[in-house]
């Protein structure tokens, strides 16, 4: 299930373990995001998807295992260093800077994120605001934004750090079908700009629509990896989803 040998890994997790007290949220996990790829990451609630994002983005350090970003070990680096090396994320529940306006929030990412020669922070911020369709709200205080707008703002702020890799956590959850389509369109544009994406999502239409490969977790471990078609037909995946909802 690995990609073509000529393509390099943007992100690689090797044997990553994370425990919370007695609970093992991520258990000896191997995961690869190839250059140019959108990797779907799915699994039932509590499977460890968000925890994996917290590990990749440096919010927690893993108990064991390595995490590589473009071949470089990052598992001991603090969040801001990882961001500046080119890995950005959104949050499952958006985490806006409530005292700022939309454009100021995005400017935080642009001013503190990865430095790229040639473009100014304000140009970058403007581009990200346009991409996420937040232009009409650019001067609005963030506390006045609705959920869909807050999700797009999280995305804009992450993109403003000029990442090589974007981790997207349930950006379509709670949105109406029109908003979901719009969000998927934005992610396609992000991908077209050469950014690799790991996309955690429960809204199957969205994640199956745009992922090149899908990685399925259950109880912190891999149960399947394959194309969207392959994993949806995989008995272990069906069992994990149906077994859970039928069981409890």
């Amino acid at each position: 299930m690995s990609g073509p040998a000529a393509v390099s890994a943007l992100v690689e997790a090797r044997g990553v373990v994370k425990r919370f007290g007695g609970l093992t949220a991520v258990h000896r996990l191997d995961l690869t995001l190839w250059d140019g790829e959108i990797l779907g990451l799915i699994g039932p609630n509590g499977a460890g998807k968000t925890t994996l994002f917290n590990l990749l983005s440096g919010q927690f350090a893993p108990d064991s295992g390595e995490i590589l970003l473009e071949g470089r070990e990052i598992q001991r680096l603090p969040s801001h260093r990882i961001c500046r090396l080119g890995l950005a994320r959104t949050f499952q529940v958006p985490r806006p800077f409530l005292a700022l306006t939309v454009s100021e929030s995005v400017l935080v990412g642009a001013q503190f994120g990865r430095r790229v020669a040639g473009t100014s922070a304000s140009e970058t911020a403007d581009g990200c605001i346009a991409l996420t369709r937040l232009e009409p709200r650019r001067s609005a205080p963030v506390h006045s934004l609705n959920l869909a707008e807050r999700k797009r703002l999280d995305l804009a702020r992450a993109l403003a750090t000029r990442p090589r890799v974007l981790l997207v956590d349930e950006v379509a959850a709670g949105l109406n079908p029109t908003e979901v389509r719009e969000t998927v369109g934005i992610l396609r544009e992000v991908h077209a700009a050469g950014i690799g994406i790991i996309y955690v999502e429960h809204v199957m239409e969205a994640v199956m629509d745009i992922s090149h490969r899908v990685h399925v977790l259950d109880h912190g471990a891999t149960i399947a990896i394959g194309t969207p078609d392959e994993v949806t037909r995989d008995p272990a995946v069906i069992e994990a989803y149906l077994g859970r909802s039928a069981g409890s």
Partner: protein
Amino acid sequence: MSSFARRQALLGLGALGGLALLAPLLLANPYSSRLAQLLFLNVLLASAWNLVGGFAGQISFGNASLFGVGAYATSMLWLAGFHPVLTMPAAAVLAALYGVIWGWPCLRLRGPYFAIATIGVAEATRIVANHIEAAGGASGLTLPLEQDLGPVLLYALGAVLAVASVLVSAAVRRSRLGLGLIALREDAQAAAASGVNVARQQVTVFAITAALTGLAGSYYAVFTLYIVPEKVFGFDLSISLVLMVLVGGIGTVMGPVLGAGIYLFLEQFVLASLADIHLAAFGALLIFIILLEPRGAAPRVAQFVRLIRRRFG
């Protein structure tokens, strides 16, 4: 020069011009001179406190430790023969250094944990200062009265320091540093995930807070000519800054200025008769204000100014 810098320079010069025009009034007698000095001192202290307390959201109850370092630096250098005004940069640098030394570990804590740590540091500093015999111990230091700078120079010095602290505050608010501070105040993890080095930003702003607070201590020594640890390292002083800023409007540029004025007014004219319990009385007032107007006086005053402008502008 950017348009912001030009505007700030003009506003600063305008404020100094206004204070110069007021000088004859405020220098009319020793009491009014002292009031002006105290007002400048409060503005400087409250603006400095607000940089870390308001923008970064880290509430310090320990700024007296920085004030005391500034006051002692100036006093000891003055007694060693340096001109008092020339000791001020040294007071700022030493206070900034002391601030970084204890701020660096303490700022890893957030919220109430940071606040409690600052009390510990400041109280320890006060106790140690009481026992340094080379610095006069508990009985403090008396400065050369015959070298008093005189009311005019003290007024000018205070005005420059106070106006400068407000300009620094406005510049920080607009800078990359200020944006990072507000971001980390709102959500430290989300800020870090956006590339903000939370520890570095906080220590940087705390060094500025400490330098300005040290300058305030230095100015205080220069106009009172007498310092004791119980006063310049005192907990009362630390608390009064928190009260000023909360009453005036935390996290705004003009809030600390308003709060400094309101505090001085209440302290001098309303609460003076209550003597020893005036902090308690002020605390009660603070609770009252917070219940009615949690964001302090600044937003109301801004609203009033806008109203006046619409009507007459």
